[in-house]
Protein backbone atom coordinates (compact mmCIF):
# COMPACT_ATOMS: atom_id res chain seq x y z
CA UNK A 1 0.00 0.00 0.00
CA UNK A 2 1.39 3.40 -0.91
CA UNK A 3 1.29 5.96 1.86
CA UNK A 4 -0.49 9.27 1.52
CA UNK A 5 1.45 12.17 -0.01
CA UNK A 6 0.46 14.22 3.00
CA UNK A 7 -1.37 13.19 6.12
CA UNK A 8 -2.47 15.35 9.07
CA UNK A 9 -4.01 13.85 12.20
CA UNK A 10 -5.75 16.06 14.78
CA UNK A 11 -3.35 18.89 14.08
CA UNK A 12 -3.65 22.06 16.12
CA UNK A 13 -1.56 25.22 16.13
CA UNK A 14 -1.43 27.87 18.82
CA UNK A 15 0.73 30.99 18.51
CA UNK A 16 1.75 32.72 21.72
CA UNK A 17 1.50 36.50 21.37
CA UNK A 18 1.88 39.43 23.74
CA UNK A 19 -1.89 39.70 24.13
CA UNK A 20 -2.45 36.02 24.77
CA UNK A 21 -2.41 32.83 22.74
CA UNK A 22 -3.96 32.78 19.31
CA UNK A 23 -5.40 29.50 18.12
CA UNK A 24 -4.76 29.38 14.38
CA UNK A 25 -5.76 25.79 13.65
CA UNK A 26 -7.76 23.23 15.58
CA UNK A 27 -8.52 19.58 15.01
CA UNK A 28 -7.34 19.34 11.41
CA UNK A 29 -7.38 15.82 9.99
CA UNK A 30 -7.12 14.99 6.32
CA UNK A 31 -4.90 13.22 3.89
CA UNK A 32 -3.86 13.77 0.31
CA UNK A 33 -3.57 10.70 -1.90
CA UNK A 34 -0.68 10.42 -4.37
CA UNK A 35 -1.63 12.34 -7.49
CA UNK A 36 -4.57 14.03 -5.83
CA UNK A 37 -5.35 17.73 -6.15
CA UNK A 38 -6.63 19.09 -2.86
CA UNK A 39 -7.81 22.69 -2.63
CA UNK A 40 -7.88 24.31 0.79
CA UNK A 41 -10.53 27.00 0.71
CA UNK A 42 -11.23 29.53 3.41
CA UNK A 43 -11.48 33.19 4.34
CA UNK A 44 -8.44 35.35 5.10
CA UNK A 45 -6.87 34.57 8.44
CA UNK A 46 -8.34 31.09 8.77
CA UNK A 47 -4.88 29.54 9.03
CA UNK A 48 -4.62 28.31 5.43
CA UNK A 49 -1.06 29.50 5.08
CA UNK A 50 -0.18 28.08 8.49
CA UNK A 51 -1.39 24.75 7.16
CA UNK A 52 1.16 24.92 4.34
CA UNK A 53 3.95 26.04 6.66
CA UNK A 54 3.19 22.96 8.77
CA UNK A 55 3.02 20.66 5.75
CA UNK A 56 6.42 21.85 4.52
CA UNK A 57 8.03 21.47 7.93
CA UNK A 58 8.86 25.17 8.29
CA UNK A 59 6.75 25.29 11.44
CA UNK A 60 5.68 22.60 13.84
CA UNK A 61 2.17 21.97 15.17
CA UNK A 62 1.40 22.34 18.85
CA UNK A 63 -0.83 19.26 18.62
CA UNK A 64 -1.24 16.25 16.34
CA UNK A 65 0.93 14.42 13.80
CA UNK A 66 1.94 15.18 10.24
CA UNK A 67 3.49 12.73 7.79
CA UNK A 68 4.69 13.35 4.26
CA UNK A 69 5.00 10.24 2.06
CA UNK A 70 4.68 8.17 5.23
CA UNK A 71 7.57 9.89 7.06
CA UNK A 72 6.90 12.06 10.12
CA UNK A 73 7.77 15.72 9.51
CA UNK A 74 10.75 16.63 11.71
CA UNK A 75 12.28 19.51 9.76
CA UNK A 76 11.93 21.37 6.47
CA UNK A 77 10.68 18.97 3.78
CA UNK A 78 12.87 19.03 0.69
CA UNK A 79 10.92 16.58 -1.46
CA UNK A 80 8.49 19.31 -2.35
CA UNK A 81 7.90 22.26 -4.65
CA UNK A 82 6.54 25.44 -3.12
CA UNK A 83 4.80 28.33 -4.86
CA UNK A 84 3.96 31.44 -2.86
CA UNK A 85 1.50 34.25 -3.54
CA UNK A 86 4.45 36.43 -4.51
CA UNK A 87 6.71 34.86 -7.08
CA UNK A 88 9.86 35.56 -5.00
CA UNK A 89 12.07 35.34 -8.06
CA UNK A 90 15.66 36.48 -7.59
CA UNK A 91 15.94 39.77 -9.46
CA UNK A 92 19.58 39.26 -10.41
CA UNK A 93 19.05 35.90 -12.07
CA UNK A 94 17.61 35.46 -15.51
CA UNK A 95 14.53 33.30 -15.97
CA UNK A 96 16.52 30.11 -16.61
CA UNK A 97 18.81 30.85 -13.67
CA UNK A 98 15.81 31.29 -11.42
CA UNK A 99 14.38 27.92 -12.41
CA UNK A 100 17.77 26.24 -11.99
CA UNK A 101 18.26 27.80 -8.56
CA UNK A 102 16.30 24.85 -7.22
CA UNK A 103 18.95 22.50 -8.66
CA UNK A 104 21.96 24.57 -7.60
CA UNK A 105 20.74 24.89 -4.03
CA UNK A 106 20.39 21.12 -3.90
CA UNK A 107 24.04 20.78 -4.85
CA UNK A 108 23.33 19.13 -8.19
CA UNK A 109 24.72 20.04 -11.59
CA UNK A 110 22.43 22.63 -13.23
CA UNK A 111 23.80 21.74 -16.68
CA UNK A 112 22.06 18.36 -16.45
CA UNK A 113 18.71 20.05 -15.86
CA UNK A 114 19.03 22.76 -18.51
CA UNK A 115 17.02 20.92 -21.14
CA UNK A 116 14.32 20.00 -18.66
CA UNK A 117 14.13 23.61 -17.47
CA UNK A 118 13.78 24.87 -21.04
CA UNK A 119 11.09 22.26 -21.67
CA UNK A 120 9.15 23.34 -18.58
CA UNK A 121 9.42 26.99 -19.59
CA UNK A 122 8.13 26.15 -23.07
CA UNK A 123 5.25 24.22 -21.54
CA UNK A 124 4.46 27.25 -19.37
CA UNK A 125 4.37 29.46 -22.45
CA UNK A 126 7.70 31.07 -21.70
CA UNK A 127 9.71 29.68 -24.61
CA UNK A 128 12.27 32.28 -25.69
CA UNK A 129 12.09 34.15 -22.41
CA UNK A 130 14.78 32.13 -20.61
CA UNK A 131 17.39 34.90 -20.91
CA UNK A 132 15.13 37.69 -19.63
CA UNK A 133 15.42 39.23 -16.21
CA UNK A 134 12.33 38.96 -13.95
CA UNK A 135 11.71 42.71 -14.14
CA UNK A 136 11.18 42.35 -17.87
CA UNK A 137 8.22 40.00 -17.32
CA UNK A 138 4.59 40.62 -16.40
CA UNK A 139 3.14 39.37 -13.11
CA UNK A 140 1.59 36.28 -14.70
CA UNK A 141 4.81 35.35 -16.47
CA UNK A 142 6.80 35.76 -13.27
CA UNK A 143 4.44 33.45 -11.43
CA UNK A 144 4.80 30.87 -14.23
CA UNK A 145 8.56 31.00 -13.77
CA UNK A 146 8.10 30.33 -10.06
CA UNK A 147 5.89 27.34 -10.88
CA UNK A 148 8.58 26.00 -13.21
CA UNK A 149 11.07 26.45 -10.38
CA UNK A 150 8.79 24.39 -8.13
CA UNK A 151 8.57 21.58 -10.72
CA UNK A 152 12.14 21.35 -12.06
CA UNK A 153 13.27 18.72 -9.54
CA UNK A 154 10.13 16.65 -10.14
CA UNK A 155 8.82 16.66 -6.57
CA UNK A 156 5.96 14.29 -5.70
CA UNK A 157 4.21 17.03 -3.70
CA UNK A 158 3.42 20.59 -4.73
CA UNK A 159 2.37 23.17 -2.13
CA UNK A 160 0.77 26.33 -3.51
CA UNK A 161 -0.16 29.27 -1.29
CA UNK A 162 -2.68 31.46 -3.17
CA UNK A 163 -0.35 31.46 -6.17
CA UNK A 164 -2.70 33.50 -8.36
CA UNK A 165 -3.89 35.87 -5.62
CA UNK A 166 -1.83 38.79 -6.89
CA UNK A 167 -2.87 38.49 -10.53
CA UNK A 168 -5.62 40.25 -12.44
CA UNK A 169 -8.84 38.29 -13.07
CA UNK A 170 -8.19 37.35 -16.71
CA UNK A 171 -4.58 36.31 -16.19
CA UNK A 172 -5.78 34.37 -13.23
CA UNK A 173 -8.36 32.41 -15.20
CA UNK A 174 -5.72 31.60 -17.81
CA UNK A 175 -3.27 30.44 -15.15
CA UNK A 176 -5.91 28.22 -13.57
CA UNK A 177 -6.43 26.51 -16.95
CA UNK A 178 -2.70 26.06 -17.42
CA UNK A 179 -2.16 24.73 -13.94
CA UNK A 180 -4.95 22.23 -14.49
CA UNK A 181 -3.34 21.03 -17.75
CA UNK A 182 0.06 20.82 -16.08
CA UNK A 183 -1.34 18.81 -13.18
CA UNK A 184 -3.38 16.58 -15.50
CA UNK A 185 -0.21 15.67 -17.40
CA UNK A 186 2.16 15.29 -14.46
CA UNK A 187 -0.28 14.00 -11.82
CA UNK A 188 1.51 15.32 -8.78
CA UNK A 189 -0.07 15.58 -5.37
CA UNK A 190 -1.04 19.20 -4.92
CA UNK A 191 -2.21 21.18 -1.92
CA UNK A 192 -3.59 24.42 -3.30
CA UNK A 193 -4.54 27.14 -0.84
CA UNK A 194 -7.03 29.74 -2.11
CA UNK A 195 -9.91 31.96 -1.09
CA UNK A 196 -11.56 31.72 -4.51
CA UNK A 197 -14.47 29.26 -4.61
CA UNK A 198 -14.53 28.88 -8.40
CA UNK A 199 -10.79 28.37 -8.59
CA UNK A 200 -10.96 25.65 -5.92
CA UNK A 201 -13.87 23.79 -7.53
CA UNK A 202 -12.38 23.99 -11.00
CA UNK A 203 -8.97 22.61 -10.06
CA UNK A 204 -9.54 20.17 -7.24
CA UNK A 205 -10.42 16.52 -6.75
CA UNK A 206 -11.55 17.51 -3.30
CA UNK A 207 -12.11 20.88 -1.66
CA UNK A 208 -11.33 21.28 2.01
CA UNK A 209 -13.48 24.15 3.27
CA UNK A 210 -12.30 25.89 6.42
CA UNK A 211 -14.06 27.97 9.06
CA UNK A 212 -12.81 31.32 10.39
CA UNK A 213 -10.39 31.44 13.30
CA UNK A 214 -9.61 29.08 14.77
CA UNK A 215 -9.38 27.30 11.44
CA UNK A 216 -11.31 24.08 11.51
CA UNK A 217 -12.48 21.84 8.73
CA UNK A 218 -16.06 22.74 7.84
CA UNK A 219 -16.35 20.08 5.18
CA UNK A 220 -14.23 18.06 2.80
CA UNK A 221 -16.10 18.09 -0.46
CA UNK A 222 -15.38 15.62 -3.28
CA UNK A 223 -15.75 17.31 -6.67
CA UNK A 224 -17.09 14.58 -8.94
CA UNK A 225 -16.37 16.40 -12.20
CA UNK A 226 -14.36 14.38 -14.71
CA UNK A 227 -10.86 15.44 -15.78
CA UNK A 228 -9.66 17.13 -17.89
CA UNK A 229 -11.76 20.17 -17.27
CA UNK A 230 -12.34 22.96 -19.73
CA UNK A 231 -13.39 26.61 -19.58
CA UNK A 232 -16.94 25.46 -20.30
CA UNK A 233 -16.86 23.22 -17.22
CA UNK A 234 -17.70 26.35 -15.25
CA UNK A 235 -21.11 26.44 -16.90
CA UNK A 236 -22.12 22.84 -16.11
CA UNK A 237 -24.85 22.21 -13.48
CA UNK A 238 -22.45 20.14 -11.32
CA UNK A 239 -19.95 22.99 -11.20
CA UNK A 240 -22.58 25.59 -10.41
CA UNK A 241 -24.08 23.26 -7.78
CA UNK A 242 -20.71 22.78 -6.06
CA UNK A 243 -20.03 26.51 -5.99
CA UNK A 244 -23.51 27.18 -4.60
CA UNK A 245 -23.03 24.50 -1.96
CA UNK A 246 -19.77 26.05 -0.76
CA UNK A 247 -21.24 29.54 -0.80
CA UNK A 248 -24.08 28.29 1.41
CA UNK A 249 -21.48 26.75 3.72
CA UNK A 250 -19.76 30.13 4.01
CA UNK A 251 -23.12 31.80 4.72
CA UNK A 252 -23.83 29.22 7.41
CA UNK A 253 -20.44 29.64 9.09
CA UNK A 254 -20.65 33.42 8.94
CA UNK A 255 -17.84 33.91 6.46
CA UNK A 256 -20.36 35.52 4.12
CA UNK A 257 -23.23 37.59 5.43
CA UNK A 258 -26.48 38.42 3.67
CA UNK A 259 -27.14 42.04 4.51
CA UNK A 260 -30.72 42.13 3.20
Amino acid at each position, binding site marked *: MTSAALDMREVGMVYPTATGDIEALADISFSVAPGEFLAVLGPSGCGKSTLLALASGLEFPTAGHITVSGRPVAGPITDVGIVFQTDVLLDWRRVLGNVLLQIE*MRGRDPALFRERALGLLRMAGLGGFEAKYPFELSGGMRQRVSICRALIHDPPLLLMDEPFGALDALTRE*QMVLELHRLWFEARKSVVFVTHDIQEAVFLADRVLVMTPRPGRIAEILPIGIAHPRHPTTRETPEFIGMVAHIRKLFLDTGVLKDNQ
Partner: protein
Amino acid sequence: MTPLAAGGAPAGLPAVQSADTGRGRARRRLPASVRSALMLFGVLIAWEIAVRLARVPVYLLPPPSVIALRILQDWRLILAQTWVTSAEVLMGFGLSIAISIPLAAMLFQWRWLEETLYPLLVASQTMPKVAVAPLLVVWFGFGLAPKILIAFLICFFPIVVDSLVGFRSLPKEVLWLAKSMGASPGKTFFKIQIPAALPHIFAGIKVAATLAVVGAVVGEFVGSDTGLGYQLIVANGSLDVRLSFAVLIVLSLIGIVLFGVVDLVERLLLPWHISQRRAGPRRAGELE
Protein backbone atom coordinates in the same frame (compact mmCIF):
# COMPACT_ATOMS: atom_id res chain seq x y z
CA MET B 1 -0.72 37.96 -22.02
CA THR B 2 1.12 40.82 -23.63
CA PRO B 3 4.63 39.94 -24.67
CA LEU B 4 5.97 42.72 -22.51
CA ALA B 5 9.52 43.70 -23.27
CA ALA B 6 9.73 40.93 -25.82
CA GLY B 7 11.60 43.28 -28.13
CA GLY B 8 15.24 42.53 -28.79
CA ALA B 9 16.78 44.84 -26.24
CA PRO B 10 20.44 43.93 -25.67
CA ALA B 11 21.04 42.05 -22.45
CA GLY B 12 21.68 44.23 -19.44
CA LEU B 13 20.17 47.32 -20.97
CA PRO B 14 16.80 48.63 -19.86
CA ALA B 15 14.28 47.08 -22.16
CA VAL B 16 11.32 48.67 -20.45
CA GLN B 17 11.31 52.36 -21.25
CA SER B 18 7.87 53.67 -20.73
CA ALA B 19 7.45 57.11 -22.21
CA ASP B 20 4.91 58.19 -19.62
CA THR B 21 7.22 58.33 -16.63
CA GLY B 22 8.87 61.59 -17.55
CA ARG B 23 11.59 59.89 -19.55
CA GLY B 24 9.96 61.05 -22.74
CA ARG B 25 10.56 64.67 -21.88
CA ALA B 26 14.03 63.93 -20.53
CA ARG B 27 15.09 62.34 -23.78
CA ARG B 28 14.85 65.58 -25.69
CA ARG B 29 17.31 67.30 -23.31
CA LEU B 30 21.07 66.94 -23.45
CA PRO B 31 22.54 63.97 -21.58
CA ALA B 32 22.86 64.60 -17.84
CA SER B 33 26.68 64.41 -17.91
CA VAL B 34 26.88 67.06 -20.63
CA ARG B 35 24.45 69.27 -18.74
CA SER B 36 26.55 68.95 -15.55
CA ALA B 37 29.75 69.78 -17.44
CA LEU B 38 28.16 72.82 -19.04
CA MET B 39 26.85 73.97 -15.69
CA LEU B 40 30.31 73.63 -14.11
CA PHE B 41 31.87 75.46 -17.03
CA GLY B 42 29.35 78.28 -16.66
CA VAL B 43 30.10 78.64 -12.96
CA LEU B 44 33.85 78.77 -13.68
CA ILE B 45 33.38 81.45 -16.35
CA ALA B 46 31.17 83.51 -14.03
CA TRP B 47 33.73 83.15 -11.26
CA GLU B 48 36.57 84.19 -13.56
CA ILE B 49 34.69 87.25 -14.85
CA ALA B 50 33.36 88.32 -11.43
CA VAL B 51 36.75 88.12 -9.75
CA ARG B 52 38.44 90.05 -12.55
CA LEU B 53 35.74 92.74 -12.83
CA ALA B 54 35.60 93.31 -9.07
CA ARG B 55 39.42 93.29 -8.91
CA VAL B 56 39.43 90.83 -6.00
CA PRO B 57 43.05 90.33 -4.90
CA VAL B 58 44.51 86.94 -5.86
CA TYR B 59 45.46 86.23 -2.23
CA LEU B 60 41.76 86.32 -1.28
CA LEU B 61 40.03 84.56 -4.15
CA PRO B 62 42.04 83.61 -7.21
CA PRO B 63 40.23 83.15 -10.53
CA PRO B 64 39.98 79.55 -11.85
CA SER B 65 42.57 80.18 -14.56
CA VAL B 66 45.17 81.13 -11.93
CA ILE B 67 44.35 78.00 -9.90
CA ALA B 68 44.67 75.82 -12.98
CA LEU B 69 48.00 77.40 -13.78
CA ARG B 70 49.17 76.76 -10.23
CA ILE B 71 48.24 73.07 -10.49
CA LEU B 72 50.25 72.83 -13.72
CA GLN B 73 53.26 74.62 -12.24
CA ASP B 74 53.36 72.57 -9.06
CA TRP B 75 52.20 69.29 -10.52
CA ARG B 76 55.15 67.31 -9.15
CA LEU B 77 54.51 68.39 -5.58
CA ILE B 78 50.75 67.97 -5.89
CA LEU B 79 51.05 64.58 -7.53
CA ALA B 80 53.38 63.31 -4.81
CA GLN B 81 51.00 64.49 -2.07
CA THR B 82 48.04 63.08 -4.00
CA TRP B 83 49.64 59.63 -3.95
CA VAL B 84 50.04 59.76 -0.20
CA THR B 85 46.48 60.90 0.46
CA SER B 86 45.01 58.51 -2.10
CA ALA B 87 46.79 55.59 -0.46
CA GLU B 88 45.32 56.55 2.93
CA VAL B 89 41.87 57.00 1.45
CA LEU B 90 41.96 53.68 -0.38
CA MET B 91 43.25 51.70 2.58
CA GLY B 92 40.76 53.22 5.01
CA PHE B 93 37.95 52.75 2.54
CA GLY B 94 38.97 49.18 1.69
CA LEU B 95 39.33 48.29 5.35
CA SER B 96 35.85 49.63 6.09
CA ILE B 97 34.33 47.55 3.29
CA ALA B 98 36.21 44.44 4.39
CA ILE B 99 35.04 44.77 7.98
CA SER B 100 31.57 46.33 7.67
CA ILE B 101 29.89 43.81 5.36
CA PRO B 102 30.82 40.69 7.39
CA LEU B 103 29.94 42.61 10.56
CA ALA B 104 26.50 43.49 9.17
CA ALA B 105 26.03 39.86 8.13
CA MET B 106 26.83 38.71 11.65
CA LEU B 107 24.49 41.28 13.19
CA PHE B 108 21.76 40.05 10.87
CA GLN B 109 22.42 36.39 11.58
CA TRP B 110 22.55 36.68 15.35
CA ARG B 111 19.82 38.84 16.78
CA TRP B 112 21.38 38.87 20.28
CA LEU B 113 24.63 40.22 18.87
CA GLU B 114 22.78 43.01 17.11
CA GLU B 115 20.84 43.92 20.23
CA THR B 116 24.08 44.07 22.21
CA LEU B 117 26.32 45.75 19.68
CA TYR B 118 24.09 48.09 17.73
CA PRO B 119 23.59 50.69 20.48
CA LEU B 120 27.34 50.71 21.05
CA LEU B 121 27.93 51.24 17.33
CA VAL B 122 25.52 54.16 17.31
CA ALA B 123 27.17 55.60 20.41
CA SER B 124 30.57 55.30 18.78
CA GLN B 125 29.24 57.26 15.81
CA THR B 126 27.98 60.15 17.87
CA MET B 127 31.55 60.75 18.98
CA PRO B 128 33.02 63.33 16.59
CA LYS B 129 35.77 61.66 14.61
CA VAL B 130 37.66 64.94 14.35
CA ALA B 131 37.93 64.99 18.13
CA VAL B 132 39.23 61.42 18.25
CA ALA B 133 41.89 62.10 15.64
CA PRO B 134 44.47 63.65 18.03
CA LEU B 135 44.17 60.60 20.28
CA LEU B 136 44.87 58.27 17.36
CA VAL B 137 47.97 60.29 16.56
CA VAL B 138 49.11 59.88 20.15
CA TRP B 139 48.56 56.13 19.91
CA PHE B 140 49.77 55.40 16.41
CA GLY B 141 52.20 58.21 15.61
CA PHE B 142 52.49 60.36 12.51
CA GLY B 143 52.56 57.60 9.92
CA LEU B 144 49.86 56.10 7.72
CA ALA B 145 48.05 54.22 10.48
CA PRO B 146 46.07 57.03 12.15
CA LYS B 147 44.88 58.42 8.77
CA ILE B 148 43.71 55.02 7.61
CA LEU B 149 41.98 54.49 10.93
CA ILE B 150 40.12 57.78 10.81
CA ALA B 151 39.03 57.18 7.22
CA PHE B 152 37.92 53.72 8.32
CA LEU B 153 36.02 55.06 11.34
CA ILE B 154 34.12 57.55 9.21
CA CYS B 155 33.37 55.01 6.47
CA PHE B 156 32.32 51.91 8.28
CA PHE B 157 29.09 53.06 9.87
CA PRO B 158 27.07 53.88 6.75
CA ILE B 159 28.16 50.58 5.20
CA VAL B 160 27.12 48.59 8.28
CA VAL B 161 23.74 50.32 8.53
CA ASP B 162 22.90 50.02 4.85
CA SER B 163 24.11 46.42 4.60
CA LEU B 164 21.96 45.49 7.58
CA VAL B 165 18.93 47.06 5.90
CA GLY B 166 19.85 45.11 2.77
CA PHE B 167 19.99 41.77 4.55
CA ARG B 168 16.68 42.49 6.24
CA SER B 169 14.93 43.50 3.03
CA LEU B 170 14.79 39.89 1.80
CA PRO B 171 11.22 38.50 2.13
CA LYS B 172 11.00 35.56 4.53
CA GLU B 173 9.43 33.45 1.77
CA VAL B 174 12.77 33.39 -0.01
CA LEU B 175 14.45 31.91 3.03
CA TRP B 176 11.62 29.36 3.34
CA LEU B 177 12.12 28.48 -0.27
CA ALA B 178 15.84 27.99 0.31
CA LYS B 179 15.04 25.67 3.22
CA SER B 180 12.65 23.65 1.10
CA MET B 181 15.53 23.21 -1.34
CA GLY B 182 17.61 21.72 1.43
CA ALA B 183 20.23 24.46 1.05
CA SER B 184 22.85 24.97 3.75
CA PRO B 185 22.89 28.33 5.55
CA GLY B 186 26.21 29.13 3.88
CA LYS B 187 24.89 28.46 0.41
CA THR B 188 21.75 30.48 1.13
CA PHE B 189 23.93 33.32 2.35
CA PHE B 190 26.24 33.53 -0.65
CA LYS B 191 23.76 32.65 -3.39
CA ILE B 192 20.75 34.56 -2.12
CA GLN B 193 21.29 36.86 0.83
CA ILE B 194 24.44 38.63 -0.33
CA PRO B 195 23.23 39.37 -3.88
CA ALA B 196 19.86 40.49 -2.53
CA ALA B 197 21.56 42.92 -0.16
CA LEU B 198 24.02 44.28 -2.76
CA PRO B 199 21.96 47.31 -3.87
CA HIS B 200 21.78 48.48 -0.25
CA ILE B 201 25.41 47.61 0.39
CA PHE B 202 26.39 49.74 -2.59
CA ALA B 203 24.32 52.65 -1.29
CA GLY B 204 26.39 52.49 1.92
CA ILE B 205 29.66 52.15 0.03
CA LYS B 206 28.83 55.21 -2.08
CA VAL B 207 28.24 57.34 0.99
CA ALA B 208 31.46 55.98 2.47
CA ALA B 209 33.38 56.79 -0.73
CA THR B 210 32.62 60.48 -0.29
CA LEU B 211 33.51 60.35 3.40
CA ALA B 212 36.81 58.50 3.03
CA VAL B 213 38.61 61.60 1.70
CA VAL B 214 37.33 63.65 4.65
CA GLY B 215 38.73 61.04 7.04
CA ALA B 216 42.18 60.99 5.49
CA VAL B 217 42.39 64.80 5.38
CA VAL B 218 41.31 65.13 9.01
CA GLY B 219 44.06 62.67 9.91
CA GLU B 220 46.60 64.72 8.01
CA PHE B 221 45.42 67.96 9.58
CA VAL B 222 46.05 66.63 13.07
CA GLY B 223 49.51 65.29 12.59
CA SER B 224 51.39 64.70 9.38
CA ASP B 225 54.31 65.84 7.27
CA THR B 226 52.97 64.63 3.91
CA GLY B 227 49.73 64.43 2.02
CA LEU B 228 47.28 66.94 0.58
CA GLY B 229 45.84 67.76 4.02
CA TYR B 230 49.31 68.65 5.25
CA GLN B 231 49.91 70.69 2.09
CA LEU B 232 46.67 72.56 2.69
CA ILE B 233 47.75 73.51 6.21
CA VAL B 234 51.13 74.69 4.90
CA ALA B 235 49.54 76.70 2.08
CA ASN B 236 47.09 78.34 4.47
CA GLY B 237 49.89 79.11 6.92
CA SER B 238 51.79 81.03 4.27
CA LEU B 239 48.59 82.65 2.87
CA ASP B 240 49.19 80.84 -0.43
CA VAL B 241 45.51 80.84 -1.37
CA ARG B 242 46.24 79.67 -4.91
CA LEU B 243 47.88 76.49 -3.63
CA SER B 244 45.04 76.01 -1.12
CA PHE B 245 42.52 76.09 -3.93
CA ALA B 246 44.67 73.82 -6.07
CA VAL B 247 44.80 71.25 -3.25
CA LEU B 248 41.05 71.56 -2.60
CA ILE B 249 40.31 70.83 -6.21
CA VAL B 250 42.57 67.78 -6.28
CA LEU B 251 40.96 66.52 -3.06
CA SER B 252 37.52 66.75 -4.53
CA LEU B 253 38.78 65.04 -7.68
CA ILE B 254 39.94 62.08 -5.57
CA GLY B 255 36.47 61.87 -4.05
CA ILE B 256 34.79 62.10 -7.44
CA VAL B 257 37.01 59.41 -8.97
CA LEU B 258 36.44 57.06 -6.02
CA PHE B 259 32.69 57.60 -6.23
CA GLY B 260 32.79 57.08 -9.98
CA VAL B 261 34.65 53.79 -9.63
CA VAL B 262 32.11 52.53 -7.07
CA ASP B 263 29.28 53.63 -9.33
CA LEU B 264 30.85 51.84 -12.29
CA VAL B 265 31.34 48.62 -10.32
CA GLU B 266 27.71 48.84 -9.23
CA ARG B 267 26.54 49.22 -12.79
CA LEU B 268 28.60 46.23 -13.88
CA LEU B 269 27.58 44.04 -10.95
CA LEU B 270 23.91 44.95 -10.76
CA PRO B 271 22.61 45.47 -14.28
CA TRP B 272 19.25 44.10 -13.15
CA HIS B 273 18.94 46.69 -10.44
CA ILE B 274 20.14 49.74 -12.35
CA SER B 275 17.83 49.03 -15.23
CA GLN B 276 14.91 48.61 -12.89
CA ARG B 277 15.70 51.92 -11.31
CA ARG B 278 15.81 53.68 -14.64
CA ALA B 279 12.52 52.24 -15.80
CA GLY B 280 10.81 53.44 -12.67
CA PRO B 281 10.03 57.00 -11.62
CA ARG B 282 13.00 59.32 -11.32
CA ARG B 283 14.70 59.18 -8.00
CA ALA B 284 17.28 61.23 -6.19
CA GLY B 285 19.99 58.83 -7.31
CA GLU B 286 19.67 60.08 -10.87
CA LEU B 287 20.75 63.56 -9.93
CA GLU B 288 24.26 62.40 -9.20
